[in-house]
């Protein structure tokens, strides 16, 4: 049985960096469980001696010449950024400041 508990979904949401509301946790644990029940049907197939496919048209060693091609300018790369400072992406702090919360 592939029932996904509300606690498991809370954990997954943390791993995926998506805040889910109480309502979403209630609703989606049911929805995702139902989908998991259905897709778990793949486990009925005997795949013991089968190799997995990660790419439908097999290619090996795709290289390119080691030459510089056109790249985005610093200005272009920053045009879509939510916050910029001194020509760089401005990122929120990684840790809470001491004494903070």
């Amino acid at each position, binding site marked *: 049985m592939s029932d*996904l508990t509300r606690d*498991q*979904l809370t954990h*997954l*949401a*943390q*791993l*995926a*960096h*998506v*805040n*889910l*509301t109480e309502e*979403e946790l209630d609703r*989606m644990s049911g*929805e*995702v469980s*139902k*989908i*998991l029940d*259905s*897709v*778990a*049907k*793949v*486990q*009925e*197939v005997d*795949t013991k001696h*089968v*190799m*997995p*496919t*990660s*790419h*439908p*048209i097999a*290619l090996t060693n*795709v290289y*390119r010449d080691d030459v510089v091609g056109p790249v*985005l300018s610093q200005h*272009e*790369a920053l*045009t*879509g*950024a*939510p*916050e910029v400072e001194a020509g760089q*992406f401005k*990122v*929120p*702090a*990684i*840790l*809470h400041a001491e004494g903070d919360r």
Partner: protein
Amino acid sequence: MSPAEMIRLTALEMAEHLRAGTFTSVELTRAHFERINQVDGTADEGVHAFLHLNQDEALAVAAEVDAIRTAGGPEADELHPLAGVPIAIKDNIVTIGQPTTAASKILEGWMPPYDATVVRTIRAAKLPILGKTNLDEFAMGSTTEYSAYGVTRNPWDLNRAPGGSGGGSAAAVGAFMAPLALGSDTGGSIREPAAFTGTVGTKPTYGSVSRYGLIAMASSLDQIGPVTRTTADAAALHELIAGHDPKDSTSLHTQWNTLLEATTDQDLSGVRIGVLEEFQGPGFSAEIWEKFQETLDLLRDAGAEVTTVDCPHIPYALHAYYLIVPSEVSSNLARFDGIRYGNRVVPDGGGTVAEVMAATRAAGFGDEAKRRIMLGTFALSAGYVDAYYGTAQRVRTLVIQDLKHAFEHVDVLISPTTPTVAVKLGDQLEEPLSMYLNDVVTIPANLAGIPAISIPGGTAEHDMPVGLHIQGPAKSDATVYRVASAIEALIEAEQGKPFYDRAPEVPQVQGARS
């Protein structure tokens, strides 16, 4: 020729008239914007195929083509055959100068700093870009109802969905707002909307068309392809956009220059056509199945050999797909973190980068994106990855092997494209699992990387269009076009007119578009 007549031509006919000078590209492009103004409307009324219109730039490109043609000389001779014929682009393909949102709030108003390779190709060939078309958020859905910017309505019946995820491109082409459009197909996002709107859509062989600049959904399955009203138009657009691109490492070195030519050979005698044992009868609506049997009779009368073939693992393809896709989605959508582009949401009182990310993604993603991220995160998590993602990848191998064996006996496989005609808006919104079933026929081609097309196969319940799905082995795109074109000609001969001329008149919207 009047604007209303111009827009009903095929893309290749438009190109012919532009060369002959019957009308100019500016007149043709204006005619399409006029049509958009009449029927496209807004999220609240009309078809609502477009999220953004690109009128000034499109008219400038059209004027440039006209000027080159008027001047004559080598530059005019070197124009691409489709130069001056307008095109619409699905809004998950990035474009300089036009916002690209993938129909997600997280990218609202985002102006990409670069063009997708297919967009560069289209600009180089001088096709005026009309605008960007609606889709399910990040191309995840089968009805276009999961767009963050409102639904697209089916031009055949505005109360029904146009299919998805590329409902905007299909509806734009079906409603004569564009002769050509680009779509992307991960599990049927070009072909299912084609079936629902009475249009033509191809998913090329994986690697035929560069995906550089396509916002990735499930990278081992995504492929860009043409959306049109005829098979020949699809082949012509496919030829334009196909070819190796060093910027996409999955891109193939194969030549794709015989696709249009293939549509001129309409001889079906001796062509081996397979019908899958696993897709017999049940699962399809009664009228769709009946219509399909009539088509098979047409094919037999035309000299094709119709046989039944067996692919025992095909019934598991849908289940494998809905494990592989969320897994790849959870990884691909990790890039939307509110740091380098897209919207950022800061929790009340501020927060760390991790808290900002979680708040940004909570506000930016819709329900289906969140569900798939959760499913994928689960399917890839320690302790479950082999039982879920790993098993799905092994089932994928078995599906590919089944299809390879089938293609030892037949040239192409055909079936109806969808189990039902277009659903009513709202009918599947509460039930993700039932929406997933729309893709049961189209998914195996993505798993196997093989070419597949949906062409109009007549009408069924409620006089809505049904699609006919034709797929062949990897890199046999020309064969798929040849057979599709032959079947299209048979159906047209039987009806006495092209399928798109059977579409009902699209109601005009009240207010002009702002």
